[in-house]
């Protein structure tokens, strides 16, 4: 099927979903961000079983009440608006839309490859990082006050309009060929 016809079909689907009044409340505990993917698995079982890494984020929002619009700013400064939904893990949402957020350890707080800068207005709306997240952030390039790990950010309605900037991590670093880092 050609590209414009596909787009038309998607548009029609979106209209149909809008017309259907499906809306359900998602109760979300802020107590332990680290286990949120587990809580997501518990709440969002489908007939085929619980959802795993990234499957939830591949699903479109079922209603406008669910939608959370955020913007990624990539390393070239380009603004990429993304339509997410409540409960989306920022790392897997980024993967869905081809944003260059690596996530090597798959959201298990064992690396810092999903490091993002959160724009200040929204930094306080996020729950405090757990100690393990801070430990991993200590290893990130160009750590700033507004640094967070993308795999620990889960979208809520409050985060509508949030901007996440990908850090620069390149030539500057290897100007003389060697910078001491732990291993």
């Amino acid at each position, binding site marked *: 099927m*050609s*590209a*414009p016809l596909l*787009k*038309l079909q998607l*548009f029609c689907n979106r209209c149909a979903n809008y017309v259907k009044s499906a809306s359900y409340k998602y109760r979300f505990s802020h107590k332990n961000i680290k286990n949120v993917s587990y809580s997501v698995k518990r709440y969002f079982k489908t007939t085929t079983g619980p959802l795993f890494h990234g499957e939830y984020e591949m699903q479109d929002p079922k209603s406008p009440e669910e939608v959370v619009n955020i913007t990624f700013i990539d390393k070239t400064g380009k603004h990429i608006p993304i339509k997410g939904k409540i409960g989306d893990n920022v790392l897997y949402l980024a993967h869905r839309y081809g944003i260059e957020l*690596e996530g*090597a*350890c*798959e959201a*298990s*707080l*064992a*690396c*810092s*490859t999903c490091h993002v800068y959160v724009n200040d207005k929204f930094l306080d709306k996020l729950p405090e990082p757990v100690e*393990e997240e*801070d*430990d*991993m952030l*200590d*290893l*990130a*390039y160009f*750590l700033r006050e507004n640094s967070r790990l993308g795999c620990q950010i889960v979208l809520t309605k409050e985060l509508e309009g949030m901007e996440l900037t990908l850090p620069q*991590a*390149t*030539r500057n*670093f*290897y100007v003389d*060929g*060697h910078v*001491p*880092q*732990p*291993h």
Partner: protein
Amino acid sequence: MYILPRLCSRHLRQVLQKSCSRNLSTSSKNVPHVCIVGSGPAGFYTAQQILKGHPAAKVDILEKLPVPFGLVRFGVAPDHPEVKNVIHTFTNTARNERCTFLGNVEVGKDVSIEELQGAYTAVVLAYGADDDRTLAIKGEKNPNVISARSFVGWFNGLPQDRDLNVDLDTENVVILGHGNVALDVARILLTPISVLKKTDISQHALDALSRSRVRKVYLVGRRGPLQVAFTIKELREMIKLPDCRPVIHNNDVKDLNKVIEDLPRPRKRLTDLLYRTSMEPSDTDSQLWAQASKEWELRFRLTPAEVIETEGKVTGVKFYINELQGEDLVNKIAKATSETEDIQCGLVFRSIGYKSIPIDPFLPFDERKGIILNKKGRVENRPGLYCSGWVSTGPVGVILNTMTWGFETGKVILKDIEDGAISSEGKQGNQIIKDKMLSNGKQLVTFSEWDKIDLEEIKRGAEVGKPREKITQISEMLKVARS
């Protein structure tokens, strides 16, 4: 509505773009062929970048062993399985239809770099650091002075280290070095067997550790607490080891609280943890530690002078006591005084850094730093030859660093292809490797054959309650691969 004209123009743009790129790249004789030597993180991340950045480029990843993944498989500690999740990303890359994994191929023996350069648009050396730094002190050659790298290879099932003679029949161990590898060694020596036996640690290591008499581990560094190279996550794990007491001397850390505020955040948090553990332990912790049967002790400002041997056995290490010099709070130099100190022990681990080796005598190599001479990944004076990962930067860095460097090198290669700095004309790719392996009677291992080895290891692990039981002999790996 307004959408239709936009859809049309976007569709039109896409059609035009596709026809342009078709003209530029896909006539089969000019498809770039890239060869990556080494299947660890550097190799895979470089491959990932090239496959992503070019619609037709083919990438071959060569590996000396029959099994892929390098240090992710053989370097990451068995009790850190989350760090190994990156294997899923690498597996995806290997399964890309334009990517071919060729295992059991030793570059420098089975095929030369020169031959590879004749068959590939670009050759990327990403073979990491197989060796480690030595101290050149008396007694270092005693069998009970072991390189941390070999010990890690031993418990992680690296074939060349499986027969390492590790004599754990001693109470005291000295580890020279204050990095994360030193902490890994200490942690594996002190972790209860009940915990280790549920990991993918190799069975021969588990057996030896079950019989271990080790009770006390000294972690000795040349400089002070502000110069430790280990990171906070690993330090926390050491502090929380069950049935184990951390010993950090008050005198070594008591003045640190005065300077903590001036430190950058990572160093500040780490120093704060050292300080609080020594000066302000909680009552609960103090009680737990009082009852612990094992302990580890951090010692600072000591440079090893000699390994003391008695009747052929290691009985201790003599150290020079250092003073720290330099204006900077953190960047200090250790200067040996004439005073010495002896620490008694029966086993010594040397954890002072890995080192790369030149796999070809004509590689421009910096012996002191242990790296291939390169500018941004381009090997000096060798067009078409690149390097990535530890062999190009030096053996320091976690996955994040290697990933970044792998992506950078990948981008440099893509740029050179685009600029025409390197040519794909007449480059045939891996046929030469296949021909040479055949004529040498050596078995090639494909990625789907690695899948067989993988499944077999998982199966054997399941029988003993482990995530996998690694096959530690190359001949056995090859047998499973061709079964």
